[in-house]
């Protein structure tokens, strides 16, 4: 029978350096049925009142917040979690703060020990170990990201991450984090930091103080320093992920962006938003520009899908118009230019500038070019090429108008949401500067952006536990997910589910399995117990591979050395150099080779072996080389139009051609396959023929069970010369697949 008296004797919250607010729990008024939660802001005390539901035994069974949602309060941390997450103003909500404020309670504390009861001061239990390690990240002195835009790397100044190395809550000392500690943290989280190497430090001495962090391709929310820092801090449970919402304009009338019909011909979609009351520092300004660059490179697919433009709102006047006009009709002063120019002139100008010329083809040949202008006719930008000089953003800009024009509306929304959420921390009040803009479609309907949609997902606790191979209770799962920026609560009444409040920064979550991965990451992959699957199957080798392996051993035993050559080669290698015409060769051609070594897939193993000999001319003679490997040929009967076939080729390179040596090897192979030397349906034989690759009169077809399977002979001197060889060669080449059918 737990009496849940939650009180503290006074607001004796321990002061944590750097905090402006403290969370305390005021006296519980159990008797009159309400729990009052207070938080201090300087000296004022604001109170939010919650209703509490008492079950018949007098135990706190549920808590209902002012919005009528019920939250789990079965353990102390879930109570505190619920309470602090509902408080939208408390941005220092760490468990440590909340714990220290609370002196006595009878609620069970750790989810691991649901039966344990607290005595006096709450022991910080599990959180202690994390607090002893990395304790704080001062993200105020950030350095900008690197020039030249590597689209998945975020740069962090090493001095901005500090570690507390004292376990005494009253005294915190800081030191700079070491690369090893940071690497460890990133390893657990799933990103990869790199230290600069000597070459980079030599070129740019400032880079010695920077680390580059490589982010996965699906995490747009970690692409800038602000986002990465926030992600890591939430992971360490130092801060809670902010809730983003867009607010209507103070004047009551939102800014408008009208999309005109002619844009449908070139770039139909546009979205927009405003960041209100923002303060830029040189570093955050660079970070802002850099995030746009990175998003342009990856999510926006080099501006083909979405293009971003950012403008100083105070220099322009709404309503804004998004139109598409013929190039000669567009005239403005572009960014960093001194004169007004028409769009045609600008295209000319930028065709020599390597940075922008890659984007010109996106609109170059269209009859109309996209353009955004304000109600005074001032051009904001000509997407996707360049913004206007008039509305450019400076360090003094206080209000930013962001527009994204696109051929893919969904990506435009994600891009817009990412930018506003990453940078709303620089608005004042923090996180509350996202102002909505009304975008009016050509047909007259309008939509408010940014959408900043949240959605609620639910996962089954036991299923998640089973799929990962761990066993944790719902409250713990909820805590782990919150660490990964997925706000979660476990509802006491339905103990088997965890409800997750998905924000737009978790756009990479598209299925429950993404959520399960986040549970596993937060738990720590390396903490999961390894087990062996109980599946029982019979093993089997693929027949042609088995035969190839056996033959390779035997051919090596016969004194030949195996080589492994490239499957791609030049057209000449399979045609001209062998005396044949490429049209007759039936090869698979590559559309986009980087060099002519990759023009076709090989139709014969011979060129590869001959090239190997030519690169190993210093080796003693004879050189007896072989290869058993796949060649590629067109085959209209296959779904992809081509197939591989396993062939065998052996070459003897010596002062004399040595036809008898390769013939001896062929005989040996047939002997190993139990194929007799005879004409007729059971055996093999050779029959003289003409083939431009081989010396006339010294060439034969190898025939197995009445069908030709390859050739044998002395190589033509022209072939020998074309492959840059000095001595005669004899060779044979046969398909291995017919051999398989024999046994």
């Amino acid at each position, binding site marked *: 029978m737990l009496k849940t008296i939650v009180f503290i004797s006074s607001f004796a919250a321990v002061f944590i350096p750097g905090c402006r607010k403290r969370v305390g729990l005021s006296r519980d008024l159990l008797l009159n049925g309400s729990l009052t939660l207070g938080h201090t802001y300087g000296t004022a005390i604001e109170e939010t009142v919650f209703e509490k539901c008492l079950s018949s035994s007098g135990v706190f069974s549920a808590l209902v917040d002012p919005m009528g949602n019920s939250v789990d309060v079965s353990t102390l941390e879930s109570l505190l979690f619920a309470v602090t997450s509902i408080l939208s103003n408390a941005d220092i909500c760490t468990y440590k703060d909340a714990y220290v404020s609370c002196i006595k309670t009878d609620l069970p504390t750790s989810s691991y020990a649901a039966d344990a009861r607290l005595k006096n001061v709450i022991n910080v239990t599990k959180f202690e170990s994390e607090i002893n390690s990395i304790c704080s990240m001062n993200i105020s002195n950030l350095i900008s990201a690197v020039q030249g835009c590597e689209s998945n790397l975020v740069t962090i100044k090493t001095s901005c991450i500090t570690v507390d190395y004292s376990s005494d809550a009253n005294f915190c000392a800081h030191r700079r984090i070491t690369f090893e500690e940071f690497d460890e943290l990133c*390893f*657990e*989280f*799933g990103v990869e930091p790199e230290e600069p190497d000597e070459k980079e430090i030599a070129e740019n001495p400032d880079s010695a103080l920077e680390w580059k962090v490589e982010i996965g*391709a*699906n995490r747009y929310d970690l692409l800038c320093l602000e986002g990465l820092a926030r992600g890591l801090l939430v992971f360490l449970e130092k801060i809670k992920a902010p809730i983003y919402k867009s607010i209507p304009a103070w004047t009551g009338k939102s800014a408008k962006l009208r999309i005109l019909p002619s844009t449908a011909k070139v770039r139909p979609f546009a979205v927009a938003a405003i960041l209100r009351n923002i303060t830029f520092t040189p570093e955050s300004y660079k970070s802002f520009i850099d995030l746009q660059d990175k998003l342009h490179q990856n999510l926006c*697919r080099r501006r083909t*899908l979405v293009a971003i433009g950012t403008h100083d709102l105070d220099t322009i006047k709404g309503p804004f118009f998004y139109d598409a006009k013929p190039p000669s009709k567009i005239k403005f002063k572009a960014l960093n230019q001194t004169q007004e120019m028409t769009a045609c002139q600008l295209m000319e100008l930028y065709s020599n500038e390597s940075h922008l010329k890659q984007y010109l083809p996106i609109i170059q040949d269209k009859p109309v070019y996209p353009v955004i202008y304000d109600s005074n006719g001032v051009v904001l930008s000509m997407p996707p090429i360049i913004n206007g000089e008039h509305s450019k953003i400076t360090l003094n800009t206080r209000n930013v108008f962001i527009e994204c024009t696109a051929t893919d509306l*969904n990506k435009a929304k994600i891009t817009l949401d990412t930018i506003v959420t990453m940078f709303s921390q620089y608005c004042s009040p923090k996180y509350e500067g996202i102002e909505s803009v009304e975008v009016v479609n050509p047909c007259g309907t309008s939509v408010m952006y940014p959408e900043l949609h949240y959605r609620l997902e639910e996962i089954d606790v036991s299923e998640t536990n*089973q*799929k990962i*191979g761990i066993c944790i209770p719902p409250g713990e799962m909820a805590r782990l997910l919150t660490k990964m920026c997925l706000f979660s609560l476990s509802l006491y009444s339905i103990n088997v589910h965890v409800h997750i409040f998905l924000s737009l920064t978790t756009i990479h979550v*598209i*299925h429950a399995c*993404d959520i*399960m*991965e986040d549970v596993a*990451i937060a738990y720590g*992959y390396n903490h*999961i117990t*390894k*087990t*062996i*699957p109980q*599946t029982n*199957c019979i*093993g*089997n080798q*693929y027949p*042609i591979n088995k035969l190839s392996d056996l033959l390779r051993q035997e051919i090596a035993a016969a004194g030949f*050395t195996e*080589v*492994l*050559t*490239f*499957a*791609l080669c030049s057209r000449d290698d399979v045609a001209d150099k062998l005396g044949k015409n490429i049209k007759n060769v039936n090869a*698979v*051609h*590559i*559309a*986009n*080779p*980087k060099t002519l*070594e*990759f023009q076709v*897939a090989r139709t014969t193993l011979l060129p*590869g072996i001959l090239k190997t000999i030519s690169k*190993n001319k210093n080796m003693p003679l004879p050189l007896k080389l072989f290869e058993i490997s*796949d060649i*590629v040929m*067109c085959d*209209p009967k*296959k*779904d*992809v*139009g*081509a*197939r591989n076939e*396993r062939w065998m080729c052996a070459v003897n390179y010596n002062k004399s051609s040595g036809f008898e040596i390769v013939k001896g090897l062929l005989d040996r192979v047939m002997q190993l396959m139990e194929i007799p030397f005879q004409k007729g349906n059971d055996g093999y034989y050779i029959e003289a023929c003409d083939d431009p690759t081989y010396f006339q009169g010294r060439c034969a077809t190898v025939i197995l069970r009445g069908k030709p399977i390859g050739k044998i002979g002395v190589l033509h001197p022209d072939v020998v010369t074309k492959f840059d060889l000095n001595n005669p060669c004899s060779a044979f080449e046969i398909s291995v697949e017919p051999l398989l059918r024999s046994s």
Partner: protein
Amino acid sequence: FTEMPTQNFVESCFWNFDSLFQPQQHPARDAHDTFFISEPRVAKDFPMDYLYRVKQIHSEGGHGSQGYKVDWKIEEAEKNILRTHTTANSARMLYRLAQQKEFKPVKYFSIDRVFRNENVDDTHLAEFHQIEGSVADYGLTLGDLMGIIQEFFKKLGITKLRFKPAYNPYTEPSMEIFSYHEGLKKWVEIGNSGIFRPEMLLPMGLPENVSVIAWGLSLERPTMIKYKIDDIRTLIGPKVNLQMVYDNPICILDN
């Protein structure tokens, strides 16, 4: 483990990317990463009802997924390429497995050549070999995947392993496998692994509670580390050092 048939260097984008739930706008499908074929340019004869389900799951979602919410074009899927991973062959095998009347657990492996359109230098080649293993059964867990990977690498003489969260379009969760290299005194990445996404398995028709765990690594990199070779071109291709081939000792790995 049963060896999969992998005798097709030429593969369609459908099997190499789309059936694996890799979005059509993914950078790996760019011309500068993949070899596209000019002749034969496109593939045909797709299992049409499966193709339709793949189209649905990419563009609209389904089976509990949000999907990618982009238009899915068959013109992109039918293009032929040189396969970038043998996971394409795993996809074909799993599809075939799903067509059988009754599901039976399987274990597959393959070791074969894959192609990436990269500039050749001392650590990169345009073609290299990939080792791939997968297990399909009811109720497999992430712990199972880690366990089997540990046993696999033990056979190669590698025992110190760590797993790191990673991202692959077709697996979730995904893990990069790191091993501690005594000589270099650091953790090096030796492989990649994960559990195939439901968006890949369910359109094939595999039962819902079947999981497929898979892992892969390249053949060349561990070989270079073990034999202390600096230039990959001396290992494979015409610039192979024949003296090295003559002198090489037998290889016993699990000492």
